[in-house]
């Protein structure tokens, strides 16, 4: 009887008693019975962000709700499928001129959310889609959280990735909600947490299963259902039928007990700080400030915590690191769009030539997006290896529970492995990833053109061979384009697309569409030796060789580069890329660019190749690689080679700092030259390419942002100093000199 009455009254809500309030643009609310349903829906945008307007409307609405005696509880929900609130509005922070101003923004947020937290009318956050940053801070200020259990629903605090911290009470509230260790993990890594995991952590209280189609499309009905369920819970909360206390598991109880001991807490802070220092090498200020704000809140109470949080938020927002990271964020958004328009034909059938590391990697990121993919190789052994690589990649996802075994099987069915050209007559696009040799590429291009339909695009995955030369034997050069993937393909986000003057716009649009589908961040560059990425890397690598020849050992060189912010040390990078590949590229680009690419001797690489030291793939390079051994040791056989090629170091340019800048300035100079020569279309693409493809320090934001933030003059000065010692390779390019000469000139306005 009770239940039927509850249902009966539930039905009543859906009836006509929904009050309509004056229209606002971001937020409006209706009343169902005595539950206010606040709907968030920013106009003209796919996502809701906590902008100034949204916040002020929200405060207005909440005040009305609190003042209304007819309302006993509230539900917050987004009307947008796939997004609750994606975070605070970055532009709102960018428009602030001083740390104080940002602090003020933070304090406003803190005040608003504190009011929510203290609300006597229970508030239920009904979360469907991304609930990130400020969105999460809002959700955890509510009394109850219900989330849709689907892949789109993720919760997280990604502020650290933008060089800031959760500035609206997040550093204070999150540790109390999920415990200090879990809160640190969330705030320091910025990782996304799926709904089911969030439930286990205590971050959400209830899950709602996504619904299939009914009398409306699934997405629409699922949101409606989420709202219905949230309203029932809001009602039960206000009737005190359910308690807000959560049953904690044994582990949770133990952790919270341990955390009540000051000594344990101190140990945890220390441990986390150590780990952060080790990982950031002191280059990123945000993580340490997050730890600090959390610590202040726990040790000195909420008020001190809020003050600390808002002040640090202000300081961080003004740092160069934060500006660089936010710049990257904007760049990434830009590079996730297809500015070449919609291609005439959707690529449904893809064929990949060569089942090597790259070919199989490309196949993996294609089949899991539902593209029917042919993987062709010349030998059965090669094909087997490639297919196994794809299977393993998918199976690893099953182990991590990102896929079910059934989904894996049905995804894997999209892949056809074969040794011949059967089925190529249906291919909309062919990507070749065969051996990096012009003759081989020419041969497969001709073979492919003999069997594919007229509309089929031929894309070449090469890191350095000019596309123009590959296209020279083509019957339809307008369909030939370069797609430079980075290894490992399923992990590296970047895709560099290379167009020749003959490549048609539709061909470009088509490969960009495929790349975006594969989940890539895309830069489109003009054809030229080494395109953009390889061309920037080559002079730096040339300098790496010179530094090694000058007697700096690879381990030291690695630590110098990583402490500058590169994720991988320079010597290790050569091993990872493959010494033979590096040699190939060095020779090719050396020929193309002459003196400017000089530095170390290619002889070093040649000797390594002849001794079989090809890097990780052969087990030996600068280091020795063994299966299962984590700490790699130096390859002592290299000593002889290095000794025989030793050159005397020049004492005034070989301090640790000089070594770092010799590498970085050559990289930056070459990048700017690519913009100057029109290889690059925009500085943003240059930054994204450098950071996502080559590991240029993200805290510097990419070569162009780096010049903007640190001053062109400083870089030119450095270059001039090294030019004096080594000559042409360090001559600054004209565009960089222009920027140095007029300080108001910036790559980003």
């Amino acid at each position: 009887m009770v239940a039927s009455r509850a249902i009966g009254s539930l039905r009543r809500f859906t009836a006509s008693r929904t009050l309509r309030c004056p229209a606002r643009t971001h937020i409006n609310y209706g009343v169902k019975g005595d539950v206010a349903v606040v709907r968030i829906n920013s106009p003209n945008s796919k996502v809701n962000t906590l902008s100034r307007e949204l916040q002020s409307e929200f405060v207005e609405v909440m005040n009305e709700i609190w003042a209304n005696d007819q309302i006993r509880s509230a539900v917050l929900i987004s009307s947008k499928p796939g997004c609750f609130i994606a975070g605070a509005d970055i532009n709102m922070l960018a428009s602030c001129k001083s740390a104080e101003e940002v602090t003020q923004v933070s304090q406003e947020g803190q005040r608003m959310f504190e009011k929510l937290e203290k609300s006597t009318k229970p508030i239920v956050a009904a979360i469907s889609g991304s609930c990130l940053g400020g969105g999460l801070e809002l959700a955890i200020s509510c009394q109850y959280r219900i989330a849709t259990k689907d892949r789109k629903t993720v919760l997280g605090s990604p502020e650290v990735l933008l060089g800031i911290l959760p500035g609206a009470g997040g550093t204070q509230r999150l540790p109390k909600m999920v415990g200090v260790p879990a809160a640190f993990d969330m705030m320091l890594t910025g990782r996304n947490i799926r709904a089911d995991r969030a439930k286990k952590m205590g971050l959400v209280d209830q899950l709602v299963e996504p619904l299939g189609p009914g009398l409306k499309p699934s997405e629409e009905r699922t949101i409606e259902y989420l709202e219905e369920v949230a309203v029932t819970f809001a009602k039960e909360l206000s009737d005190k039928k359910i308690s807000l206390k959560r049953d904690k598991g044994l582990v949770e109880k133990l952790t919270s007990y341990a955390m009540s001991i000051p000594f344990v807490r101190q140990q945890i802070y220390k441990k986390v700080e150590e780990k952060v220092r080790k990982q950031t090498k002191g280059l990123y200020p945000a993580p340490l400030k997050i730890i600090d704000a959390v610590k202040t809140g726990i040790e000195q109470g909420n008020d001190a915590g809020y003050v600390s949080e808002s002040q640090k938020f202000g300081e961080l927002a003004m740092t160069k690191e934060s500006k660089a990271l936010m710049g990257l964020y904007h760049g990434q958004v830009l590079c996730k769009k297809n500015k070449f328009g919609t291609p005439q034909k959707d690529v449904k059938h893809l064929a990949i030539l060569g089942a090597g590391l790259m070919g199989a990697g490309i196949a993996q990121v294609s089949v899991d997006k539902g593209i029917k993919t042919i993987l062709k190789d010349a030998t059965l052994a090669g094909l087997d290896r490639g297919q196994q690589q794809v299977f393993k990649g998918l199976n690893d996802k099953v182990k991590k529970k990102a896929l079910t075994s059934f989904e894996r099987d049905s995804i894997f069915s999209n892949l056809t492995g074969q040794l011949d050209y059967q089925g190529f007559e249906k291919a909309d696009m062919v990507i070749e990833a065969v051996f990096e040799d012009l003759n081989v590429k020419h041969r497969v291009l001709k073979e492919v053109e003999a069997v594919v339909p007229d509309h089929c695009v031929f894309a070449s995955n090469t890191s350095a061979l000019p596309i123009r030369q590959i296209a020279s034997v083509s019957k339809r050069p307008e369909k030939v384009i370069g797609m430079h993937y980075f290894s490992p393909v399923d992990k590296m986000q970047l895709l560099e697309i290379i167009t020749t003057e003959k490549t048609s716009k539709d061909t470009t649009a088509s490969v960009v569409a495929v790349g975006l589908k594969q989940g890539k961040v895309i830069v489109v560059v003009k054809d030229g030796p080494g395109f953009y990425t390889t061309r920037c890397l080559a002079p730096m690598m040339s300098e790496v060789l010179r530094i090694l020849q000058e007697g700096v050992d690879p381990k030291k060189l690695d630590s110098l580069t990583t402490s500058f912010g590169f994720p991988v040390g320079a010597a290790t990078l050569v091993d990872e890329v493959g010494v033979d590949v590096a040699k190939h590229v060095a020779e090719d680009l050396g020929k193309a660019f002459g003196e400017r690419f000089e530095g170390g001797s290619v002889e070093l690489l040649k000797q390594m190749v002849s001794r079989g030291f090809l890097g990780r793939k052969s087990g030996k390079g600068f280091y020795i690689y063994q299966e299962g051994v984590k700490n790699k040791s130096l390859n002592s056989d290299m000593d002889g080679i290095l000794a025989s090629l030793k050159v005397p170091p020049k004492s005034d340019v070989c301090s640790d700092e000089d070594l770092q800048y010799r590498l970085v300035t050559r990289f930056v100079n070459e990048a700017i030259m690519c913009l100057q020569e029109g290889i690059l279309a925009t500085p943003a693409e240059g930054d994204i390419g450098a950071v996502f493809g080559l590991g240029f320090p993200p805290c510097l934001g990419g070569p162009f942002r780096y010049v903007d933030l640190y001053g062109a003059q400083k870089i030119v000065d450095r270059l001039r100093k090294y030019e004096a010692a080594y000559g042409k390779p360090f001559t600054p390019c004209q565009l960089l000199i222009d920027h140095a000469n007029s300080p108001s000139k910036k790559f980003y306005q």
Partner: protein
Amino acid sequence: MTQSLVLCSFVYMGHLLYDVGGNCTRMGIPKDFRMTSILTYTLKNLPSTSKWALRFSLRPLSCSSQLRAAPAAQTKSKKTLAKPNIRNIVVVEGVRIPFLQSGTSYKELMPHDLARAALLGLLHRTSVPKDVVDYIIFGTVIQEVKTSNVAREAALGAGFSDKTPAHTVTMACISANQAMTTGVGLIASGQCDVVVAGGVELMSDVPIRHSRKMRKMLLDLNKAKTLGQRLSLISKFRLNFLSPELPAVAEFSTSETMGHSADRLAAAFAVSRLDQDEYALRSHSLAKKAQDEGLLSDVVPFKVPGKDTVTKDNGIRPSSLEQMAKLKPAFIKPYGTVTAANSSFLTDGASAMLIMAEEKALAMGYKPKAYLRDFVYVSQDPKDQLLLGPTYATPKVLERAGLTMTDIDAFEFHEAFSGQILANFKAMDSDWFAQNYMGRKTKVGSPPLEKFNNWGGSLSLGHPFGATGCRLVMAAANRLRKEGGQYGLVAACAAGGQGHAMIVEAYPK
């Protein structure tokens, strides 16, 4: 060509009749007792009258419109579904042993024991000479590994000729339907004249396996030749090898249990808990009534070895809405709507049916009960539309037979869950769903409740997975004989997102 044109115009006229009838009677007053009781119930319980009363009164109205249309249009779209050059296939008789909740009287038995009892019941009821039977087919879902071809074991045990071949089919909850239609195929193609089709399920005992690791070790031990090899294998034994593997209750493709999917389906179609409980109550009440009035004539008694003779289904338990409302959701906790009371329960049971070519049956002096006519199998998304088989199958089979909803006098749908039945009703009654998911121009319409599962359904009578299909067909055939009427429509959903529907035509008296 001309023939099909004529057929089309018939169908078209049928639609016209239906529409006119619908419009005419929309003004009428619902007479159906149950609907009015719901109406008064909601009126009593709902403070705001206007809209709700309106919505509720609309529903029975639209139901009764179809009901009225049927008798008004005395002429069916088609006089018979006989097709030229295709043999007429008839059901001579069909029986089932009582369906029991698992873990009760049948719990010591094996599946072939139940199947044998059903076969013996059929033999007894029809006195068909055993050697006339050309073929035997049984459906089953959870297989007893010792009797994987349970049809053969049961047939041998029941004393059928050892020269009569038998095979077992499986298609989840429509396994018995598959057994029948396989038989229909054998007869229609002239391969056989007499087929016995049936189904069996014993949920009191299910095969529980050793873990894969344990199985592997045992198999390797079998192959080991020396003591050393054996010892080294045994040394690899770990305690967790002993954890057993239960037969999956979840869909293999989605890892979702059927109850969970049913709850989501009910929510997708906004079927309330109260509606579901009311429907379940209806099923139990009607089953009780049918049982008391002796209408369930397909049931044959079964003397269980060592126990008393079982004569009746034991899962029929009409309760009250208040009692049902007390139950907690069984799958989506704590706010789901599917409970133990509005779901079908685990059941043991078996059924068997004698199918013949019409001329053979007549030659043998039988008076058949019904024709088995057009049938279809459908399948759809196993995740979000797992249980929508009837929605997809109904319009398809009607189209194939050249009939419309108004031609059907008896509907017999498999009731997996109340929520599933009601969601199917809503889907069948939605143009939007028909257009967006089924590729059809218009909805087929939901069956009028007055003609729907009038003698109870799987919710109340029970649902032995492999055996339900035959029960549905016999219920349709027996209802047509009892209540009058020509065409019956049988439909069912099944795991894997599959479905089935068949037209049963009463044999002229």
